[in-house]
């Protein structure tokens, strides 16, 4: 399946956040969106999910997303929001079960099968033991895993993840990145944002760099994540080091702040 954005412009109260974006994503890809704070990454996600009005076209296999019924669309696009705490003490399983909503009739409650699928989604992430725990009292990493389980319970074609590694400790960040790679092997398309270019090196098959509402670079991580692009985006001097195992990491260069 292909998700195509054509001349996408989005704005709030007359201020244009995204200007004429053209790109496309395929299932099986791991695409990392990089860009400074406020460059429009979350806005792009909200437009794709039809949560914001936009100009231009967003299509799933030639069908405009806005024309696809919301329930059907939920079977194609799943959203993993940034961490949040609901106001009531739902169990982790309750949270994952909401991912089955598109399969549950308007007047129905989850069936035994829905519960089984939700359990499968928990087990896929090796967090079955959290099922009965109070979601609000889980650690940040555990909650992020539960939200990913919920998205998987939707059995979507694309997973849209808004900063899945923020708030996570060093180990959990790597676990999530590893998981993203595993999911891509299941032919799910993953689009995620991060503020750590290293994470793009670690698991992305493609990087899209966004600056001032437009795409400034798009391609393989090592093509896009160059000193010049990173310096332009983050307005600091950046060094990129190649590790012996072939992976790259970036660090801020000495005397690095450009403004």
């Amino acid at each position: 399946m292909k998700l195509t954005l054509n001349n996408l412009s989005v704005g709030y109260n007359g201020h244009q956040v995204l200007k004429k974006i053209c790109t496309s994503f395929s299932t099986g890809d791991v695409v990392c969106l990089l860009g400074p704070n406020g460059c429009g990454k979350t806005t792009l996600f909200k437009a794709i999910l039809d949560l914001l009005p936009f100009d231009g076209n967003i299509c799933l296999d030639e069908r405009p997303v806005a024309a696809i019924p919301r329930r059907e669309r939920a079977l194609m696009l799943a959203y993993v929001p940034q961490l949040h705490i609901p106001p009531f003490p739902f169990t982790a399983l309750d949270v994952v079960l909401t991912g089955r909503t598109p399969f549950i009739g308007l007047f129905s409650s989850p069936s035994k099968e829905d519960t089984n699928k939700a359990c499968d989604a928990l087990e896929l992430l090796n967090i079955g033991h959290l099922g009965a725990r109070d979601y609000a009292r889980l650690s940040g990493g555990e909650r992020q895993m539960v939200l990913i389980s919920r998205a998987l319970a939707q059995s979507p074609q694309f997973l849209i993840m808004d900063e899945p590694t923020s708030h996570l400790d060093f180990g959990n960040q790597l676990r999530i990145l590893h998981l993203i790679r595993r999911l891509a092997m299941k032919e799910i398309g993953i689009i995620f944002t991060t503020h750590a270019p290293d994470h793009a090196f670690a698991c992305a098959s493609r990087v899209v760099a966004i600056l001032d509402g437009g795409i400034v670079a798009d391609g393989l991580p090592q093509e896009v994540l160059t000193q010049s692009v990173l310096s332009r985006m983050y307005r600091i001097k950046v060094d990129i080091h190649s590790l012996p195992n072939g992976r790259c990491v970036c660090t801020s260069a000495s005397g690095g702040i450009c403004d």
Partner: protein
Amino acid sequence: MISVKSDAEKPAVALPAPANHTVVVGGLAASLLLLVFVSLSIGRYPIGIHDVLAILAGSLHLSPALQDSPAHLVLFNVRLPRVCAALIVGASLSGSGACYQGIFRNPMVEPSLLGVTAGSAFGAALAILLSASIVFIQLSAFIFGIIAVLTTAAIASVVNRSGEKTLTLILCGIVTGTLFASFLSLAKYVADPNSKLPAITYWLMGSLASVSMTDIQIAVISVITGLVPLMLLRWRINTLAFGDDEAKSLGVNTSLIRILAIVSSTLMTASAVSISGMIGWIGLVIPHLARMLVGPSFTILLPASVLLGALFLLFVDTVARIVFPVEIPLGILTAIMGAPFFILLLSRGKRGWV
């Protein structure tokens, strides 16, 4: 509430135990049934439980022998309407409170949020001011309750700050509530202080003493009209607790669900308030008690809240009838009796609302 098995037999996925919740709801229903019979039996004119059953069974078979006995008159003209009213009002306020807390994602919310009780209070005061009959007072309370919520919705759709529909609605509810509270004050200000002002004041304190069987028949219809959609949509209402953006991305038509939930809750609250007057506390606190018992999932929380609300109000009203020589208004008693009970549960319960 949660099954924690020993490590030896730990299942792959730790499931919350739904069986416990069914037992809790079953227990509430059984206690409610028991309390109904006890409440029908005791009072100034005691009727043995056996006689209560005989009279109820006899009336089904239209046995004329029992028709004119004092026990029959007390049961059908006084006690049964009152017990039914307590059940309906308690269930409505608590059920719509649970619903509002869920859809507005806020545990501090109660059914009066969008102005329905303020509207009803003004409606009743206006009717009393015009020396209307009790039927007209109730009708006026009901209609003005609905008008207040429609006003809130109308203001919200005019203001319509993009992306913050829920917050806009709550703020507009506060505006409407304040507006109708001022109208109420105006009605009280111009009311005759010797006759009408006390009538308005007593109405506002809430009572089930003057409810007739006709009121019950009308209220039952509108309460069921509100409760059925809520029961049917209760899983979808759950998803709104995670916020609009998430619910939408889960495939939920959030506007439709919210409108249906608000219309249903308003119908229930307005009918409850119109027959009982103002009874606070239940719509705010009983859903919390229910949540402590069965957890926050609305599929089980709604039936539990409805049963617990009915149970609580019937209990308080029965005590109000029996214990005190002069009947104390219900609105006062629900808070006085509920507060210590709630504090006790709060201090013992592990799972609160945050």
